[in-house]
């Protein structure tokens, strides 16, 4: 009997995802109605991130089942769901950090600009350059100054930059940290507060000019003030790149994101219950479980 329910659920979900799946172009038109940001986006139009039928395993245990989602350029997508539903695993699949866990396995495709990032012959370091990541705990490099931290990606990936000072300032401004650190760029990153460290990490990821930025609960270790600063930063960044953010904070998802995906695990693998525009998910969700979750009735 449980099997039947599971099957019907999955069918349900598949039809839902098909319904709610949006192509990059239609997303862009929706987004451009709300905010005027046109020219820059057209250039990166082709660099959308797309997950198709993702299944993931740790050893023999299936942890994600058939997840498909589109992340269009210039949008913020929030992933919500209770702990253990596979949000973090999913976001780590998107830039191939998943494969560091020795027993991890995967099925499905992740497409960046139409090309599979797991394809044979793909240089994984190039993928991670294009798809940056900000972690739950701020992790500036302790042996480097603020300046060196921001520019570390350039050195690590051995990129060439004409004007490092300009890049430094540009990244810190975009991460919303410039005014606070411009007079002490040669101090060590560890001397900053938690919120500043997290924005330093965002600036660090921006320095290598990613097409997409993945954020795994970036504010969970921060106070409300720092959280607000980072949310502002996310809104500003979304004008030029696509952002995927995992969060446990429902208000945060509602505040910063254009689209929201709700993942849930009923003890088995995590599944995508619903994916749609944020206003729809929070005001008029199609699935009852989504409604229960966003209104705080469980989870």
């Amino acid at each position: 009997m449980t099997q039947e329910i599971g099957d019907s659920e999955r069918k349900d979900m598949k039809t839902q995802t098909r319904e709610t799946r949006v192509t990059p172009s239609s997303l862009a038109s929706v987004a451009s109605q709300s905010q005027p940001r046109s020219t820059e986006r057209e250039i990166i139009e082709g660099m959308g991130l797309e997950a198709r039928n993702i299944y993931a395993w740790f050893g023999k245990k299936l942890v994600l089942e058939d997840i498909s989602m589109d992340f269009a350029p210039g949008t913020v997508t929030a992933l919500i769901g209770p702990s253990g539903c596979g949000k973090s695993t999913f976001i780590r699949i998107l830039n191939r950090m998943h494969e560091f866990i020795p027993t991890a396995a995967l099925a499905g495709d992740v497409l960046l600009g139409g090309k599979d990032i797991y394809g044979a012959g793909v240089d994984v370091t190039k993928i991670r350059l294009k798809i940056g990541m900000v972690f739950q705990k701020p992790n500036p490099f302790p042996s480097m100054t603020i300046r060196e931290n921001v520019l570390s990606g350039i050195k690590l990936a051995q990129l060439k930059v004409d004007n490092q000072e300009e890049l430094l300032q540009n990244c810190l401004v975009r991460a919303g940290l410039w005014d606070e650190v411009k007079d002490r760029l040669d101090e060590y990153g560890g001397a900053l507060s938690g919120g500043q460290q997290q924005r330093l990490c965002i600036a660090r990821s921006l320095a290598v000019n990613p097409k997409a930025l993945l954020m795994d609960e970036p504010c969970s270790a921060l106070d409300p003030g720092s959280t607000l600063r980072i949310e502002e930063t996310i809104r500003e960044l979304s004008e030029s790149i696509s952002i995927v953010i995992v969060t446990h904070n429902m208000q945060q998802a509602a505040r910063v994101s254009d689209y929201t995906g709700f993942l849930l695990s009923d003890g088995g693998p995590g599944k995508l219950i619903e994916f749609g525009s944020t206003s729809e998910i929070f005001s008029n969700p199609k699935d009852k479980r989504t409604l229960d979750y966003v209104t705080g009735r469980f989870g």
Partner: protein
Amino acid sequence: MSTLAVKPTKPWRPKVRNLAPEIFGAFFTAFATLAIVAITPLKGRLGFSFALIAMAVFTSATISWLRRDRKAALNSVSTVFVYVAAAFVIIPLSSLLFEIVRKGIGGLSWGIFTRDMSLASADSPLTEGGLLHAVVGTLYVVALATIISTPIGFLASLYIVEVKGRFAALVRFFVQAMSGIPSIVAGLFIYAVWMIGLGNSYNVMAGAGALAILMIPTVARTSEEVLKLIPNDLREAGLALGATQWRTIAMIILPAAKSGLVTSVILGIARVAGETAPLLLTIGGADALNLNPFEGNSSALPFYVWKNYSLGNPESIQRAWLGVIVLMMMVFIFFSLARYFGRTKGARR
């Protein structure tokens, strides 16, 4: 700056009046100990120490019990035992240092660092001859052993912790087994393989090889522990920025672990700097300065100490103590330099 009316009073700086029970206890302990030593058969330094510890435990426990309760008494007893244990750790080391300085400092002069023993005989006064050849030999042999074993030790620990290769467990097992090798066996190994087997003669390089065998496991095991302490976030952050594993290790992991890695090399040097047995079999010993580490017999400070002490006449024994104090000074200077250059910059999280 305005003066504040309130001054910090609690809970620091108890007044003499408040300390009265403690002071009374200390005097009581002292008198009681003297009384016990005078009256009972407990005699000598050992008896005195025993009586003192017993009385200190008894007095502090009694005072605590009277002032508070049984728990406080137990706390006092354990406090006394901890202090006694700490003293037992410090006493052997400090008396060792004291003895070395007392016996060795007499012959210390600038001249001994400028002369070797080639023109002096065993019973010459200390104003003739010196230990230049031994100092140079030790510097050579330790430096070469460090040059050989540091990269091998670091790479082994990187393989175990960072690469996590298929043979990581095996490598760790062998490193641990290696750290149990007696030093004379390392010397014999070099003697049998490098010298008898391959036909080389005594030289500093052979000694360095023997010391490296002893130093590699120390460096590898200590640096493995250091690398394990580097938070995984930093590795992930580096890789998420599009770096290869080698760039992440070279630019993030190693700088973050720098002071710990320097410590691992220091511990390795401390392990081998005073080794005598492997050098007896490998560097051959000499009375003249030999600046070529790849050819000819040489000396080293532990060798010099052993040789002079075994000669037995008063001047030679004085020279042996001189060698000990110079070896101690060299190790101390080297540690200070390594600490200075390996110090951590920036705030640690």
